[in-house]
């Protein structure tokens, strides 16, 4: 269960139930802690993962989460990908708006999760499912910019 720092090793987890959401949170926490994220950043990442995993379950009808440790020079990071084959998102911009909801929540899922990590990207097509990718880098005061190597 020790996450290797090799970027090629991804861990895939199924998302099909409440218990799976809890397991995803648990695993993301483990990876984040081992990569050296501080407690606040860990909490942010796990919370973002929880929001997105729930989206995958509730809106996407289930799917999977993929956890990949990242390394860029001295910087360590974590990439999380949430994949479903559900109905997709018709209007991504609208879905990213604070307060927009279709699932009866507070509508903070996507927009809120984006504020908790460094990058968040959505690929979706109506009827084709949704892939949400988020990336967080271990912060060192001045955020280490990825892609400078």
């Amino acid at each position, binding site marked *: 269960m020790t996450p290797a720092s090799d970027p090629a090793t991804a861990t895939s987890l199924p998302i099909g139930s409440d218990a799976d959401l809890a397991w995803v949170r648990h695993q993301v926490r483990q990876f984040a802690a081992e990569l050296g994220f501080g407690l*606040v950043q860990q909490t942010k990442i796990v919370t973002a993962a929880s929001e997105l995993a729930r989206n995958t379950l509730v809106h996407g009808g289930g799917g999977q989460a993929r956890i990949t440790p990242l390394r860029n*020079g*001295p910087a360590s990071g974590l990439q999380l990908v949430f994949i479903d084959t559900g109905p997709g998102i018709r209007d991504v911009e609208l879905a990213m708006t604070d307060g927009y909801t279709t699932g009866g929540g507070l509508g903070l899922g996507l927009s809120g999760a984006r504020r908790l990590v460094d990058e968040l990207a959505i690929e979706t097509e109506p009827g084709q499912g949704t892939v949400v990718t988020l990336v967080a880098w271990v*912060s*060192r*005061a*001045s*955020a*280490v910019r990825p892609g400078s190597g």
Partner: protein
Amino acid sequence: MQVPEQAGADSAAHGLADFLERRREQLAQRWADGPLFRTVFTVSRDEAVEACKAVVDALSEVASTGRLESVGAPGFGEVREQLGRMAASRAGRGFTPAQIADEAAGLRTAAVELLRDETEDRPDDEARDVLLALTVLMGTLRLVIMETTVSAGEELIARQQLQLLEVATPVISLWEGVIAVPLIGTLDSARSQVVMESLLQAIVEQRARYAILDITGVPTVDSLVAQHLMKTVAAARLMGAECVVSGIRPAIAQTIVHLGIDLSSVLTRSSLADALAYALSRQGIEVSQRAAGANPR
């Protein structure tokens, strides 16, 4: 590299790999006496020799793959961390990257001398090609060292910035249950994260009911700074502490109004003293002047 030369270059690279393997011991001994290794492994010369051998091994691995000019060649992976530690140690003693580059160049001189000694009696084309290959490879090693030097420097700067942030954000206990953070300088995102974290930690540790954010020393308040302040206030409230923002100078107050920033969710006071008076009175504590002439007891 041109095609007709390819075969020659390949054999030169292999000749070089042979040379490095054959002369591993001598090369390591010479390098260990050079300033780059000697000054890092001050305690044990054996250790310096071992480190040099690791670098020689890496070079011969790179040479045997023929990728003499590739900084990213897998062979360098092994020694990169070690070179990084050396570069960091040199940089820590105040050496500039240029000086470290000179020391790295010294490694080439030693290697070239050794190769010359060996081929003195047969100065043919092959020997010349191997020498050329060695020069190229040593140039690449120098680049790898420079690369690790620069990234070690970046890391140092990042660490110092973090320390500066922490130093610049003390949390002061003003009264039982009342803490304050005097903010001085620009309040950017990184800074406000540190402020938020240290403030919340202090609320827990000191069981504070009131937290004062004093912005007397903050030069300007724009909508971003206001947003940071509001977030901090909201987070403190979630932990059960009431936040007061104090030190709002007239010019700042005007800016806030002009920019149309809504600070209505935040309790404000013009001075730190006013904020403390507020916190005390909310806790039922009254501070009054002794009647004239009255004795302390």
